[in-house]
């Protein structure tokens, strides 16, 4: 019981830290990034099929940074909650019950999205360096990364949510 409360407290801290980090990134972007405005203009720009597709690269960078941090924040919590197993398997099971609740499952889908995007975009960055593709090539690869991330996330979400929502 106490273990569950401690875990929930830790989980709240993790969520708060992720939100704070995203805010810090956004503030930094407002000040130093001279490339985009959120809103109708952005949507039309993202849709354009010209060298303007470079906008996607910009958002990919911010998504990569935030998703990386989010995965790390979760990882810290995860290492700690799995370490409960070394204390007592009973305590671990106690905490682990929380993982199969619906809110936690939804969180897991978010985690999958962040992990999948960060991994795939990271591989895209390696490809850019190794094969020296230019901005247009990078934007095309980003299309593939976004598509693949969506597929993995949706597929994974179905698998994760299925037992809780009917199954």
């Amino acid at each position: 019981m106490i273990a569950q409360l401690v875990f929930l407290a830790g989980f709240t801290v993790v969520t708060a830290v992720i939100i704070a980090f995203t805010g810090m990134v956004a503030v930094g972007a407002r000040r130093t990034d001279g490339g985009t405005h959120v809103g109708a203009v952005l949507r039309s720009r993202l849709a354009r099929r010209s060298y303007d597709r470079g906008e996607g690269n910009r958002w990919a960078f911010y998504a990569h940074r935030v998703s990386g941090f989010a995965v790390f924040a979760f990882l810290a919590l995860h290492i700690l909650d799995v370490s409960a197993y070394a204390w007592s398997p009973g305590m671990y099971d106690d905490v682990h019950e929380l993982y199969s609740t619906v809110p936690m499952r939804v969180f897991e889908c978010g985690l999958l999205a962040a992990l999948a995007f960060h991994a795939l975009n990271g591989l895209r960055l390696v490809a850019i360096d190794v094969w020296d593709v230019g901005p247009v090539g990078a934007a095309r690869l980003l299309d593939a990364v976004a598509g693949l991330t969506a597929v993995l996330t949706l597929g994974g979400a179905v698998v994760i949510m299925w037992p809780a929502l009917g199954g």
Partner: protein
Amino acid sequence: MEPTTTRTDTRTRTRPGRIGGRSFLIIRGTGVLLAVLALGHFAVTHLVNDVAQTDATFIARRWSSALWVVWDGLLLVTALAHVGTASVAVVRDYWTDPAGQRRMLAALRGLLLVLLVIGAVTLLFAAG
């Protein structure tokens, strides 16, 4: 008005030097490894097995196999190494005074060390 352009797509034969510095290689190397290790770990613990089934007995079973002990151990080390190296640039971007940077990086390294020790102890304890 067209921009005057000197855009020539010449591929120059620069003498092949090493790509990037040490931290560059560490980030990319651990990253590629993690793409496999982390996604695989997630797949097995959340997709192939439903998360409700990954209780203490699941852990006992998983870590009685050398494959998963090595997999998870490698995952732990590479993940923390990746975070440690990649976050240097992030810290430098948001803490612009050198003293603040050093403090933040030291705190981060401390946290990563603690996590490494906890994770390693748990794994070694469970693997017997």
